[in-house]
């Protein structure tokens, strides 16, 4: 069973297509693993083994008659519980929406169903993708599979925990200020926020319209690229969706980094915010590895981290409060304290300040993307600290804003978090690889080269 738990999407696809693995047996193995271990991790908010078996039986019948749909056919996946799946509640991990049953699939759910995926259930999130980890909600917060006393990141917390724990090889999360990449960093997996508009947000509960992204979390870079291939594409009914060619994200894998120009945004984690020494050492070791593999590495400068983060939060909280104002008036007691406080930060932002933040955003994004005339990708920190204890609100409060992920929700281009090792205490460390708009294939190329040169993706948590 352990072997099946750690199969990648690519490995499983090979076995399933060749009928060396039955989708039903695969699903049953992962269902048993979830039943055995998730009581201690809370990765699933709503576990749906009956739907998984239904999907698996259908996949088995189709593959047996030679109708293989592609790499996700017969492969288990999960959705963050702000993404609609017909017939199931989309709760956003909140009392406010506990009976909000979806009447249609989100576009990403439609695409994964069409790809023949085996749906395992809805995954824990922070309340409305912002308030967590919280213990005052109808469901408990997800915990870190590497050490369940520690935070697993968020807000796509269940997606990160479930993927790292071997409950499924791929999950879909969302990212408005770093919420795919945070759990990826803290759980030692890969998490991609692709270019804004590349993946449809239709059917996903918004947090902040102009910053929301949908993205995959996987244990390997190749799997991440495969998943993005499946979910990317223009959606004319999503006003933020771009009519840009999508797909081909595995095309550059295996080409290495020799001769590529990599810019290191070091001031984010040394001058603007001082990263924990183990985090900083992890980043520098990764940068040295990329240089050793033949990349031309040089330091680059952009605007101070604090300006990006403040700009992100002004826009995020203003848009979020606009969405939540009615509930904040009528049902403030039905929010958890963290979500209420974080969303209420937008209550009294002046219209002029919101507009000026969006003006600044355009300037910052244009200036940042101009750097790509001299580099192929940039790298920088993801979290400034290793995962803290989940039951330490002071540490959660301190580390929550110490990150360099929200920068790329402002700039809008692709940013991928990949693991770069572990602390002495055995907790994962991550780094971000950042591309120019629509440069996902190049980001995956660099990440894949690094992943192959290290063995971090082959380490898995012991859940006993």
């Amino acid at each position, binding site marked *: 069973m352990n072997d099946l738990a750690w199969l990648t999407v690519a490995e499983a696809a090979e076995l399933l297509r060749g009928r060396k693995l039955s989708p039903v047996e695969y699903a049953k193995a992962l269902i048993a693993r979830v039943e055995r271990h998730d009581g201690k991790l809370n990765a699933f908010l709503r576990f749906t083994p009956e739907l998984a078996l239904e999907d698996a039986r259908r996949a088995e019948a189709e593959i047996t008659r030679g109708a293989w749909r592609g790499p996700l056919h017969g492969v288990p996946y999960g959705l963050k519980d702000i993404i609609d799946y017909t017939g199931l509640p989309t709760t956003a991990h909140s009392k406010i929406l506990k009976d909000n049953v979806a009447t249609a699939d989100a576009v990403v759910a439609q695409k994964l169903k069409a790809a023949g995926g085996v749906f395992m259930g809805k995954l824990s999130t922070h309340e409305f993708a912002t308030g967590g980890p919280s213990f005052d909600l109808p469901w408990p917060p997800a915990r870190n599979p590497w050490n369940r006393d520690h935070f697993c990141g968020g807000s796509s917390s269940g997606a990160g925990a479930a993927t790292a724990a071997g409950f499924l090889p791929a999950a879909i999360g969302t990212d408005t200020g770093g919420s795919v990449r945070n759990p990826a960093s803290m759980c030692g997996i890969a998490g991609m926020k692709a270019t804004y508009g590349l993946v449809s947000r239709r059917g996903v509960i918004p947090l902040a319209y102009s910053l929301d992204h949908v993205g995959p979390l996987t244990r390997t870079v190749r799997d991440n690229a495969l998943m993005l291939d499946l979910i990317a594409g223009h959606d004319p009914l999503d006003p933020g969706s771009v009519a840009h060619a999508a797909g081909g994200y595995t095309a550059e894998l295996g080409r290495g980094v020799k001769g590529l120009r990599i810019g290191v945004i070091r001031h984010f984690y040394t001058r603007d915010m001082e990263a924990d020494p183990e985090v900083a050492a992890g980043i520098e070791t990764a940068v040295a590895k990329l240089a050793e593999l033949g990349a031309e590495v040089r330091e680059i400068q952009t605007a101070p981290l604090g*300006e990006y983060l*403040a700009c992100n939060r002004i826009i995020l909280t203003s848009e979020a409060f606009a969405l939540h104002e009615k509930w904040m008036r*009528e049902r403030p007691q039905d929010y958890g*304290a963290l979500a209420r406080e974080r969303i209420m*930060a937008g*209550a009294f932002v002046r219209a002029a*300040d919101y507009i*000026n*933040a969006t003006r600044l955003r355009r300037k910052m994004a244009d200036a940042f993307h101009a750097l790509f005339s001299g580099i192929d990708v940039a790298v920088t920190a993801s979290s400034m600290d290793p995962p803290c204890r989940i039951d330490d609100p002071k540490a959660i409060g301190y580390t929550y804003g110490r990150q360099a992920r929200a920068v790329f929700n402002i700039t809008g281009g692709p940013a991928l978090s990949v693991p770069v090792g572990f602390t002495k205490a055995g907790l994962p460390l991550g780094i971000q690889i950042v591309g120019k708009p629509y440069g996902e294939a190049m980001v995956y190329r660099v990440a894949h080269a690094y992943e192959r040169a290290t063995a971090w993706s082959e380490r898995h948590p012991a859940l006993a």
Partner: protein
Amino acid sequence: MSDDALTLDDIRRMAAEIGMIRLTDAHLQELLRATRTARARRAALPFANLVPADEPAHVFRLEEGK
């Protein structure tokens, strides 16, 4: 109003003005902290460097045929 001058009573009045009349004292404390944080964030941003030609990141546009 500076952050230091902002009191719980101010926040209660401001909240009432936008219809948030069901907040408990604990909620109002949260709103006070959140508002102070938002103002500190705004103060950290170089809005003074913006020029009239700097347009918002998302502007309204119409596609052909709509």
